[in-house]
């Protein structure tokens, strides 16, 4: 309370002094000494009266009974200046640029997985990474709002903005019971560990294989999510959501409410300086004409239906449409040229193969690579994370172990656009996981290693009967793709980090060719990445 009086006194006193000085200055023109003296006397009397009144008030305040339970409006002794920008949202800009080099090409397309924007390898050479602009703030006493705009700066081209997040979330005090929150809009939803985390906060420069294959980096559909922290001694949280069904692995939902999620998490401490958390998650929805291309987000549906109609009349058109989609998928023009040529070649080959060499072949392998999927998709995930700081100070030294496993069940069919009469039915499970360890040596240096694995689904082979897939016969022996990564990074402050990373990917890919025995090959890619990540301005606190 003492400080409030001091502040009041100081403010009152300086006000009086200023007034006296101003008055005196104004009278400076040409008053006589008597006039001036009289004037000053009058002012003096007036202010003495005012000071007395003020003193009286202060005395009354100090003798009034204290009201301890009253919350303090603001830290005491500070004047609150109300200017426009006080209520501006917190603004943060993440600066991310990198140098990458790899021995194979930019495309990452493991057999059995549709890939798209978010799953490709980083661009060869110097390029911007994944810069983000984040705005956030309390809307009022009940809601918090945030938006994250990701900038994909393709070299030599204009910047492509992606609205990665835009949501409102209830604040405690919104009227929900203790422990409950609702988030609505578009957000990095609760599914596994990394999905909720912004890319710049990852411990490695790229997402692990299962994230690239199953989620195309992250699941950030439009929707809403309810979460509830249970009033238990051990940390336990449950939640569920309802989503549009527009983001991979879902696509083109007709109802716009076709995807559901549910999750549960528990966590706690071990010893004085360790903490753990494990979770189980599920995500279930539908996909309609899902291609691997970039963000579907609703508007893709019409195009694809359009493709459907045209494709039935003319095969040539269908081929064209197919290429168009590729164009959406691959932003690098050079790559795309290459891809197109390849495509035409293998299509010719395949037709030859089918017509000349008999009725047996791997059914519609292309459909699994470049085609569309329609059907039910259910994903399950389990994650675990364990942190331990030898002295309890994660800033000085820390060890983090983390792993996630994903399963995806796709029950539906794959087909090339327009070739909907000859689909490949799929009811199989693919799996992927990664484990990683990070060791923080001291305030500035960290090292880490990661192992990731991807098990493709069974891809049915069939007997071709007059260009029609009769029934499943066998499955090609698809092996798992694996990736190893090691990294070392240097952290100057919590706002700047420079990282060096080496990746080795061994990816099983389809070969398009006439020889059925050589349908698969392993592509080995050695990558080196150098990256900086810095953040300007507001920087959201990271969760566990």
């Amino acid at each position, binding site marked *: 309370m*003492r*400080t409030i009086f001091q502040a009041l006194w100081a403010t009152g006193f300086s006000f009086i002094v200023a007034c006296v000085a101003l008055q005196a200055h104004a009278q400076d023109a040409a008053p006589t000494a008597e006039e001036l003296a009289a004037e000053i006397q009058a002012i003096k009397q007036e202010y003495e009266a005012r000071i007395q009144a003020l003193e009286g008030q202060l005395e009354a305040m100090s003798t009034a009974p*204290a009201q*301890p*339970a009253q*919350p*303090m409006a603001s*830290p*005491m002794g500070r004047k609150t200046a109300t200017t426009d920008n006080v209520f501006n949202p917190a603004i943060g800009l993440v600066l991310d640029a990198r140098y990458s080099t790899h021995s194979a090409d930019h495309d990452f397309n493991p057999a059995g997985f549709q890939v798209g924007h978010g799953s490709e390898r980083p661009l060869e050479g110097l390029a911007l990474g994944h810069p983000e602009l984040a705005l956030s703030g309390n809307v009022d006493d009940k809601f918090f709002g945030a938006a994250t705009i990701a900038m994909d700066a393709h070299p030599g081209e204009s910047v492509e903005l992606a609205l990665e997040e835009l949501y409102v979330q209830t*604040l*405690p*005090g919104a009227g*929900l019971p*203790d*422990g*409950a*929150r609702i988030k609505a809009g578009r957000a990095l939803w609760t599914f596994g560990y990394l999905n909720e985390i912004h890319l710049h906060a990852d411990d490695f420069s790229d997402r692990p294989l299962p994230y690239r294959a199953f989620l195309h980096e992250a699941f950030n559909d439009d929707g809403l999510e309810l979460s*509830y*922290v*249970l*009033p*238990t*001694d*051990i*940390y*336990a*949280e*449950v*939640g*569920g959501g309802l989503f549009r069904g527009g983001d991979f692995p879902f696509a083109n939902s007709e109802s716009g409410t076709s995807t*559901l999620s*549910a999750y*549960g*998490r528990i*966590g*706690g*401490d071990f010893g*004085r300086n360790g*903490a*753990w*958390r494990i979770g189980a998650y*599920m995500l*279930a929805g539908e996909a309609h004409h899902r291609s691997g291309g970039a963000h579907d987000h609703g508007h893709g549906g019409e195009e694809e239906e359009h493709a459907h109609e045209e494709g039935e009349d003319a095969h040539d058109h269908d081929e064209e449409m197919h290429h168009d989609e590729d164009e959406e998928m691959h932003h690098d023009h050079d790559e795309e040229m290459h891809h197109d040529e390849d495509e035409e070649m293998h299509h010719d080959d395949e037709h030859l193969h089918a017509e000349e060499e008999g009725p047996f072949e791997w059914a519609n392998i292309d459909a699994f690579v470049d085609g569309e999927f329609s059907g039910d998709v*259910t994903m399950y995930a389990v994650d675990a994370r364990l*942190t331990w*700081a030898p*002295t*309890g*100070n*994660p*800033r*000085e030294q820390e060890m983090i172990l983390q792993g996630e496993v994903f399963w995806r*069940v796709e029950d539906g069919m794959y087909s090339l656009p327009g070739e909907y009469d000859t689909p490949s039915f799929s009811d199989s499970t693919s799996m992927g996981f990664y484990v990683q360890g990070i060791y923080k040596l001291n*305030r500035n240096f960290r090292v880490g290693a990661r192992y990731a694995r991807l098990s493709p689904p069974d891809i049915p082979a069939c007997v071709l009967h007059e260009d029609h897939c009769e029934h499943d016969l066998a499955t090609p022996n698809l092996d798992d793709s694996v990736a190893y990564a090691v990294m070392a990074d240097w952290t100057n402050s*919590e*706002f700047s980090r420079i990282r060096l990373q080496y990746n080795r990917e061994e990816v099983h890919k389809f070969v398009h060719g006439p020889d059925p025995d050589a349908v698969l090959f392993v592509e080995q890619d050695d990558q080196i990445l150098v990256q900086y990540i810095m953040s300007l301005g507001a920087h959201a*606190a*990271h*969760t*566990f």
Partner: protein
Amino acid sequence: MHRFLTRALIAGCLTAAAALSALPASAEVRVFACEPEWASLAQEVGGGDVTVYSATHGGQDPHHIRARPSLIAQIRRADLLFCSGAELEIGWLPVLMQRGARIGIQPGQPGHLMAAEHVDVLERPAVIDRSLGDVHASGNPHVHVDPRNIRVLASELAARLGAIDPDRADAYQTRLADFHARWDNATAEWDARAEALRGTPLIVQHAYWAYLFDWLGLERVASMERVAGIPPSAPFLQEVLAHSRSTDVKAIIRANYEPTDAAEWLSERSGLPIVELPSTVGSYPEVSDLFSFFSEILTRLEAIPDQSASVPGFRQPTG
């Protein structure tokens, strides 16, 4: 099939959640203290009527704590949040409060008690910029290292506990009166011991001790961190070293949780002794409460040999 499973899962979760919420709340007031000193004070004033949880322990730097799951669980059920405030916990407390979503401990509620809002805060910066390091716009948050502040906060705490748990408001006031009596005795004794220390020139590693220096009238000759929160740099340490030679300095002060290397480097070259002080209750086994916390600090300061850094015959810097 999957759809059914999902619905069953959601329904199951919600039922379980509802069942657990309906459990009767514990009779005691649950206090979530961000730092051990506030946990200790809550124990003094709350006694058996409160359950106290401390988010950190005496070996931890309270600036940098992980918002770990156990803290979310604890804050979810807390009736009173008792922290230093002044942005000390800004890296982890807001996210806990949002995740725990406990209404009674939000700002503006009686269950939200920030120590720095109730005492005179020192070192409020005039300029704020990230290049100046981890500056706290609201001033130095380590307000607990002054027994006069502890006294003020004990009163505030008793009043808050009384507001949250009116049935036992009298019990809190009785315990407060008892604590104040013991505290005033101890403070008088410490003040007497402090006379001999008044004016002692010291170098500090981090601006942790502003309130201690203010209380004891110690003289801070230099801080080893040019900017708060950024580890000392070699050129700046050279400056501090030069400064320590030209001035009469008795010792280097560092908190128990701080890294030792910079203080050792300076000590080796200047010949000044390092005095390690407990940062809070529980920093050492013998520092078990607020009383032993302050007496341990005084004992360690009194042990500083009465030699001057500027006396000739000092070891010259090597290399």
